């Protein structure tokens, strides 16, 4: 695939020399003319002047040359843009555009201008399109009870209905939080695919002549440039987990920072998440004895001396990122933080009945329930836990404190593999010898039902469902 870079020629102050861009006069005001240009139109980066272009017209022009506008990177600049910063930004967007994969019809969300007026309805509105998420029901863990996207969505666009996630596109903004929260990576938004972000960040670092800081910014807002920093646009920085910031450092950035919505003018105003992501990355670096100021959004430093890590932004890769930071520091780390996207589950053996609901719900199979002839075991692998807390929501004994999850990055536990959290005997059928259920669970049911149901429990606790009618 070829990435074509076109830049509007109506703004001579945009310094595009050395970027490889094709200058198109009137690109902002009359983008339809690109149809007449004999260029390879596989993938596109368009450099336009801020507030001078009409997005629906640009998208329409791209469609007319068979370019998917949702994958095209549109860079709006103003006349004060520094030439070397522009060259680096275009290199990054070229890589991001190149890593774009095809969209499905469900990914295109039509949006209209915000103002709604009677006059505006004299003509049908021309939609612009934004890239919306799509749930892959094949990998979604909703059938096990997972509702992580429902909990994460600030707009209530997701609903859990009888083991299936229902998504309302018209309610979605979209902000991308569901994409980074989904424990199984079942929610995909092609405009912010992890491989695109990784390609862009690596290209930005590769193209810069000095140390470079990666700054995640909301696509709805804009901020002024700062020395050494280069922007990576995401739908909203509330989607950025702390592990992404550390991932940037592991691929060679000299600093990384998620700009809170309020600082960039993003109207979603979901500041807390970005602030917590920065705080988490800061805490991990501080605990590791590395320079924690790399994530405060000020100075850009020398990159870490470390082994580069592959695929640091994909779903379920947070544990690898944290272990790579610990390996770089040559220290064990143990950080507790509510925003951690790795977690540690604890079961209280006095309250846990071994019913296994936590394991059935766990979307990443971090918790696993295992039966043999006489015992049932619940085991846990911290390396795959994403701190989604779905196990806590599913636990029927939560009021007795049977289960707890702590957002925690413990490098020893992350590397330890699977460990047993609780085990107990199983009730066995007195006739056929088959396993009925965990003995503690049957005991708990008996306690709840009380003496009145003692006779019933004597049957239920001693005979399997097939043998209950036998004499």
């Amino acid at each position, binding site marked *: 695939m070829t990435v074509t870079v076109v830049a509007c020629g109506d703004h001579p102050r945009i310094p595009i020399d050395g970027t490889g861009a094709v200058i198109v006069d009137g690109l902002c005001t009359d983008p339809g003319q690109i149809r007449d240009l004999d260029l390879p139109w596989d993938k596109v980066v368009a450099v336009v002047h801020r507030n001078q272009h009409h997005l629906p017209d640009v998208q329409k022009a791209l*469609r007319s040359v068979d370019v998917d506008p949702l994958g095209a990177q549109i860079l709006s600049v103003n006349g004060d843009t520094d030439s070397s910063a522009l060259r680096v930004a275009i290199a990054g967007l070229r890589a991001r555009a190149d890593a774009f994969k095809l969209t499905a019809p469900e990914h*295109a969300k039509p949006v209209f201008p915000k103002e*709604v007026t009677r006059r505006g309805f004299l003509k049908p*509105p021309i*939609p612009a399109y934004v890239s919306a998420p799509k749930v892959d029901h094949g990998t979604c863990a909703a059938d096990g009870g997972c509702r992580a996207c429902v909990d994460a969505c600030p707009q209530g666009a997701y609903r859990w209905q009888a083991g299936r996630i229902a998504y309302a596109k018209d309610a979605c903004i979209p902000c991308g939080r569901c994409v980074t929260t989904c424990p199984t990576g079942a929610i995909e938004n092609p405009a912010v695919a992890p491989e695109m972000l990784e390609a862009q960040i690596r290209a930005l670092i590769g193209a810069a002549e000095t140390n470079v800081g990666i700054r995640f910014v909301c696509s709805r807002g804009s901020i002024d440039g700062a020395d050494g920093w280069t922007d990576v646009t995401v739908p909203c920085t509330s989607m950025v987990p702390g592990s992404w910031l550390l991932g940037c450092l592991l691929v060679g950035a000299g600093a990384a920072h998620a700009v809170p919505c309020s600082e960039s003018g993003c109207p979603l105003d979901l500041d807390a998440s970005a602030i917590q992501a920065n705080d988490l990355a800061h805490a991990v670096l501080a605990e590791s004895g590395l320079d924690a100021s790399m994530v405060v959004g000020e100075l850009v430093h020398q990159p870490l001396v470390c082994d580069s890590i592959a695929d640091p932004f994909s779903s379920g890769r947070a544990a690898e990122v944290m272990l790579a930071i610990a390996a770089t520091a040559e220290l064990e780390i143990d950080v507790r933080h509510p925003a951690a996207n790795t977690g540690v589950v604890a079961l209280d053996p006095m309250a846990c009945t071994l019913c296994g609901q936590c394991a059935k719900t766990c979307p990443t199979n971090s918790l696993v329930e295992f039966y043999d002839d006489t015992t049932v075991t619940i085991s846990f692998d911290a390396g795959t836990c994403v701190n989604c807390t779905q196990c806590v929501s599913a636990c029927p004994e939560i009021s007795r404190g049977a289960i707890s999850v702590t957002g925690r990055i413990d490098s020893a536990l992350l590397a330890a593999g699977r460990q047993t959290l609780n085990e107990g005997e199983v009730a066995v059928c007195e006739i056929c010898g088959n396993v009925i259920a965990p003995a503690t669970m049957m005991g708990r049911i008996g306690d709840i039902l009380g003496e009145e149901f003692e006779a019933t429990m004597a049957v239920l606790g001693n005979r399997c469902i097939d043998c209950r009618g036998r004499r």
Partner: protein
Amino acid sequence: MIEWTEEARTRQGLYRFLGTAMRPPGAERFALLSSAWVLLDDRDLDTYAFSPVWRRFGDVLMSGGSIGDREVEYVRLFGVGMAGTPATPTESYYRVPQRDGGIADFISTLQREYRSMGLKPVGTAETPDHISTELEAMSFLCGVEAEAWQGGHDRVAMDTLAHEAKFLSGHLAVWVPVFASRTRDADPGPFYGPLLDLIHAFVVHEADLVRMIVKRRALI
């Protein structure tokens, strides 16, 4: 309201075009489709997200191809063959999985909906829940909408748009993506693959766009 009328007429044409394309193939039908494609392609469709798949299907349609091959392909994909039907083109197949008396209930509910649009069931080759019948019903609604815009009856036009949104979200947008996916899985060949890609993209786009317009209008 000229633009609203024109837009409704374009959508009416697109639904009819797709409904016709999903009926059993024939030389006369393909000639009609080719002429209709040229007319519709003049309607500035690049404004909409489905336009690349529209053009791709146009290329296939205009490239000719054997009618016999398409007949074979149609029967293999959507008819009843030795190995069953890879992609059944009727809604009840996807909405009433238990395949019992529920299908009759489903069809009679659908027929009630057609009657509420002002349509009367008469003897046709396809069942009321066949994709071409449902697309044709949407085409009819768009025609009613266009007449209303043209006559200056904005309220009737918006009510019809709301009716379209309801029919799309209650029927076509629910099952067409699954049907299109089944068709793709069945290795559909050079004609019905691009056609189902187009129907899928168009129906999903319509459901989103019409719902957004209705919602937006309600804010005034």
